[in-house]
């Protein structure tokens, strides 16, 4: 009988890996130009070398890292969601709870304002002034991705400082909400001072996998490996916490340092994903629920499975975003909400009994 649950877990993992393996080649076929156009350019004999090089570049340098990047970002978000829900013992928790979303937005707004709005804020016209602002400023050298990551991590640190440590879950939650709101207000202020950044900001907020190249991809994959191993090692704390704080304490779990480590994993995973792809909603929230709807596992397995589920969700949504109204693109955040939310709605509708979380 025990074998059933473990077996289901393995089936689910296998299914998700298979789906991932399918999505990757599919991802190379979807985009502004159909694969049927690219194929002859890639393999045909009579193509001129420039066209072939361009076709290869599209498939290899653009579509493949984009699909893999979506997979990695989804994996990071799914993992972060599972950690957040375990840490706060709340099925509605998502990875952005500790203020990382607002922190990243603030970082991006600041970077945009300094890069583009130099003339605006100073009030003087003239390209030379703007050029001086840009090449000199360290934030510009950091780039938008660096600024987003730094913002996310700093926001989480601020939340921790406000909550005075990780001991009290409720205080941590409240601090996260406060930090989110306050940093959001600062972001609005900066956008007011340099309204030119408004559209760029909106593009960031909607989330997009369009700018993910190989470096971003490998970076995300590396961070994901680190985080998933760390989360798996720390998963027994989450299991213990599910029984209540006093029980976890009585079981001899060193709550404070391990919770701090989990918050660090959460911040790292969320910050990396947000820095590369912007704010993509719902993946972190939905992935653990989707896994639990299929198989009920303790947190050790949940980390890996939620990662895979999030990865497949985002990679699939990215594929649809590119393919539905090709050559135009839908924002990927819309599709993750539709896919993840739709499935959750169906689940809720199906379960009339008191079983499960929903």
């Amino acid at each position: 009988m025990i074998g059933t649950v473990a077996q289901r877990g393995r089936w689910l993992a296998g299914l998700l890996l298979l789906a991932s393996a399918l999505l990757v080649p599919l991802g190379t076929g979807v985009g502004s130009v159909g694969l049927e156009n690219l194929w002859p350019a890639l393999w045909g004999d009579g193509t001129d070398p420039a066209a072939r090089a361009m076709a290869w570049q599209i498939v290899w340098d653009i579509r493949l890292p984009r699909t893999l990047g979506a997979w990695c970002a989804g994996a990071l978000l799914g993992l972060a969601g599972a950690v957040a829900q375990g840490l706060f013992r709340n099925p509605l928790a998502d990875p952005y709870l500790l203020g990382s979303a607002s922190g990243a937005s603030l970082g991006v707004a600041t970077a945009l304002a300094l890069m583009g709005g130099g003339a605006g804020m100073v009030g003087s016209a003239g390209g030379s002034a703007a050029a001086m602002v840009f090449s000199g400023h360290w934030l510009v050298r950091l780039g938008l991705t660096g600024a987003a990551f730094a913002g996310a991590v700093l926001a989480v640190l601020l939340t921790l400082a406000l909550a005075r440590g990780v001991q009290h879950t409720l205080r941590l939650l409240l601090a996260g909400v406060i930090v989110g709101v306050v940093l959001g207000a600062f972001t609005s202020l900066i956008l007011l001072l340099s309204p030119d950044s408004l559209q760029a900001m909106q593009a960031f907020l909607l989330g997009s996998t369009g700018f993910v190249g190989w470096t971003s991809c490998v970076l995300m994959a590396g961070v994901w490996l680190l985080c998933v191993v760390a989360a798996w090692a720390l998963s027994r704390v989450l299991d213990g916490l599910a029984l209540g704080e006093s029980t976890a304490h009585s079981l001899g779990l060193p709550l404070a340092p391990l919770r701090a480590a989990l918050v660090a994993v959460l911040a790292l995973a969320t910050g990396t994903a947000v820095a590369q792809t912007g704010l993509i909603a719902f993946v972190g929230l939905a992935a653990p629920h989707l896994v639990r709807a299929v198989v009920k596992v303790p947190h050790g397995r949940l980390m890996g499975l939620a990662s895979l589920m999030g990865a497949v969700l985002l990679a699939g949504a990215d594929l649809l975003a590119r393919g539905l109204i090709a050559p135009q693109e839908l924002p990927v955040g819309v599709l993750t909400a539709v896919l993840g939310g739709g499935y959750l709605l169906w689940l809720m509708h199906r379960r009339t009994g008191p079983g499960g979380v929903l």
Partner: protein
Amino acid sequence: MKPTPVRRILWVVAIVVALGLLMAALARAQSLPTPPIVNGPPALAVQMTDDRGRVITLPRPPQRIVSLLPSLTETVCALDQCHRLVGVDRYSNWPETVTRLPQVGGGLDPNIEAIVALRPDVVLMATSSRALARLESLGVAVVALEPRSHADVQRVIGKLGQVLAVPDAQRVWRHIDAAVEAAAQSVPPAARGVRVYFEVNRGPYGAGASSFIGETLTRLGARNILPASLGPFPKLNPEFVVRADPDLIMVGARSMEGLTERPGWSNMRAVREQRLCVFPPEEADVLVRPGPRMAEGARIMARCLASKAAGNAGNAGKAGNAAKAPVAVRP
């Protein structure tokens, strides 16, 4: 019995690390070969510094250009190089021929793949965009230019002339300059010194004296209620406008909705006396683009000054379309 998870984890780690190394190695191996030099007259390399301070070197004047900023599109066409454009953003709509070109997304969220598929020699775009870094990492030459003021427009025209290897690009500027001067002459003396409020966008965002719109207004002899110290496009408290009591209000049809319902605005002198110039969307597009059509824009504003500032009670302008997204400041 349950297998040791440690071994399984090691397997997974090994596979993922192997995949990662493979990806990294292949990423390094791939690169776009340089386009072959066509036999013909010896190509002159083009070198210029863009608005980021970056020096761009192209082996020869670009023949395939993608433009992601409407004002840059218009400038390219004003330099008679429209035929070299192979792709534009979705907001570029002048001249007519440009609308038939493939559209590769917005200025700030362009479709990277579509741009690369067009095999451009150079991409023209604004400075603040993530797409810039991505395109450069793919080996595409990018020139970032961002005109904001009259001086900027002149500079950008010069730089584009350098990129396109067009002699005497400044004739475009001279034409703009002359047209603005002529427009200034056409403004009747009674309209000089009129205090104007130009609203660019719902917000409300106004055009300050240091913006290109403000500079044109200044040259036309009008005064701006927004001092230069507020910046080029400040977001205002509507009450500020009421207190400043402008003689004339210029606004686009899209932002016109709800204007008179703002508290205190229905009693403003300019509103009561119908001293409002409401520009239809085509004219609004012309006015908010810092490019070659600034000449046309100056004429539009001069017409407005001549008809309204002199005290003629005209109608409030043609009715605008159903409001779409508010006109961006520098689309």
